[in-house]
């Protein structure tokens, strides 16, 4: 057996310790950087030269695809020179993942940027937000007319839908988590199934039952009803999750103090779950304001500013966008993108609000 060494160890806090700074541990060596960048440039050059001859310049998309493939091949070859196979595979996967993430985020960014880019010419005009299209033809220049009626319509329709679906949705969630019982399992199954309902079927249902069946006219109210049909299951399910996450210890503590169940729910459970409930509502709203098929079926594309949800068709942002698009007139298209920008801004604002609600409130930053 080899001799054992006894080494004097440094005793903490009694000797002035020699302060060694942390080491920089590089996972990616210089060699790796060179091979990556080199492969990128080499494949770019290769594809650049070859592209025009073989592929007749099929556009940027095709070029990007070819560059990606060429890069993978070149990089695999280069990396294989000095690395065993499992490292090469790992590198290729890493590179592919970075590119996939870039593709998806890039697509999202291009959507948002393109919408604002095409729409800005509309909303530099103040009349875009303060007028409706009642006196104006769709092909009129941009300093006339606006989408006020669509904005107001969206707000009113969503407002009514929320006023109806939040009590129903949260109430159902409370039923499922707090009251329970045999029926609640059935309710949960059905509610989960209904979150899958395509919005157009909700619209169709309301159309046939209320509009054709009961003779109700196409109006904002019909749209709100159909929206509520899609929103209730979403709110119910997300709220159920939020309520279930409240620790049962809180409920028990409240009962131990002699509170009734209702009191416990009202004063203890709901306040604790408030952030989650708020997020559920916000997500449902974001879903509701973007629905196009429902206003298409249940309302008409009126051009008048209208605060009355019943009896008269009410326009809304998605419907406005769609009808403007169908004209295929350049002026109308710009207005469509302007309206789309407004819609997108609303969704973004809701989204930021949801993130704000869910922010990490602990001081552990």
């Amino acid at each position: 057996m080899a001799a054992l060494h006894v080494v004097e160890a440094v005793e903490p806090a009694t000797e002035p310790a020699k302060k060694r700074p942390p080491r920089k541990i590089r996972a990616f060596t210089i060699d790796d950087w060179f091979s990556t960048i080199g492969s990128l440039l080499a494949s770019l050059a290769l594809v650049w030269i070859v592209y025009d001859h073989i592929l007749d310049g099929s556009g940027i998309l095709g070029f990007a695809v070819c560059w990606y493939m060429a890069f993978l091949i070149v990089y695999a070859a280069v990396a294989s020179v000095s690395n065993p196979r499992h490292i090469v595979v790992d590198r290729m996967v890493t590179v592919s993942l970075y590119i996939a993430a870039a593709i998806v985020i890039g697509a999202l960014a291009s959507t948002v940027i393109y919408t604002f880019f095409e729409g800005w010419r509309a909303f530099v005009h103040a009349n875009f937000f303060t007028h409706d299209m009642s006196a104006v033809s769709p092909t009129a220049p941009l300093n006339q007319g606006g989408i006020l009626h669509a904005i107001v319509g969206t707000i009113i329709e969503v407002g009514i839908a929320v006023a109806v679906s939040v009590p129903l949705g949260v109430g159902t969630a409370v039923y499922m988590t707090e009251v329970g019982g045999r029926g609640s399992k059935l309710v949960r199954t059905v509610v989960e199934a209904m979150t899958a309902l395509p919005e157009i079927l909700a619209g169709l249902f309301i159309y046939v039952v209320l509009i054709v069946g009961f003779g109700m006219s196409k109006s904002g109210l019909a749209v709100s009803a159909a929206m509520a049909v899609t929103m209730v299951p979403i709110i119910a399910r997300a709220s159920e999750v939020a309520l279930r996450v409240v620790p049962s210890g809180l409920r028990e503590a409240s009962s131990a103090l002699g509170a009734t169940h209702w009191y416990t729910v009202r004063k203890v459970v709901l306040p604790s779950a408030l952030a989650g409930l708020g997020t559920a509502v916000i997500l449902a709203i974001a879903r509701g304001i973007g629905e196009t098929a429902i206003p298409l079926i249940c309302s008409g594309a009126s051009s008048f500013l209208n605060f009355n949800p019943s009896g008269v068709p009410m326009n809304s942002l998605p419907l406005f966008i769609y009808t403007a698009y169908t004209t295929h007139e350049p002026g109308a298209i710009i207005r469509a993108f302007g309206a789309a920008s407004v819609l997108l801004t609303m969704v973004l604002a809701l989204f930021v609000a949801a993130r704000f609600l869910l922010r990490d409130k602990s001081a552990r930053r």
Partner: protein
Amino acid sequence: MTSGTEAAVARPQEIRRGREVSTTPRSPSEGDSRRGPAGLDIVEISAWFGETQVLDDVSLSVPSATVTALIGPSGCGKSTFLRILNRMHESVPGAKMAGEVYLNGEDIYAPGHRPTDVRRQIGMVFQKPNPFPAMSIADNVVAGLALTNTKVSRSDRTDLVETCLTRAGLWNEVKDRLSRPGSVLSGGQQQRLCIARALAVQPKVLLMDEPCSALDPTSTRRVEETIAELRYDVTIVIVTHNMQQASRVSQQAAFFLAEQDTPGGIVECGPTTDMFSNPSDQRTADYVNGRFG
């Protein structure tokens, strides 16, 4: 004891590893750089999690073919220290380290060394047994080979499975059910499976982070027997809270301590028998006599 005969089995066959073809095995005490146990020279290790320093200038020399026990109360940085030895510490976001760890004279943190290669040579067994549940027992044992692209022929594979399970003291219990999933075993058996899995990649050093703390006394005894027999094949560094275990299995021990809010370090280190019967530092004496910890 049946485990004695299990341990005295032939060494694993030649394995074709990526590009290199390994030579015939040497005897244990030579500390051969190709195969067999190796010693570690750990020089002035400091460790941080973010801005909090948890280890301060810790040095230790681990001779090859021995069992070294790291003892001390909880929270002194023993596990952190262990994870620095196989470069697992750096996988935690915000973790930093300083110092060098020499395996056969080469610093494992030098720029040319990949963490994955280091971990092939310095293996680890964890506190909670973690066999891969989606794989059979046999596949679990050779999982490390697949992960590091080490090619093994079919016959070599079965031999390797048998050898490693034997060295881990598990062969007789599972030889009839090698294709069952790893999760059907008991806790102690799972831990021995993890040991077999670690052995299959033929590391030079095996690190063990409180391997018996989640096991019942019988399984603990079996694992300790395995450890005692393994040291000729692989140098072992074991973190343990159980001082009796340390005195049972190790030849050398290092006592870790951290004062309140200060980084941890080694107070005393030496042959295990001396540490327990005649410690030089008062704090060591207090700890081994159960006055704190």
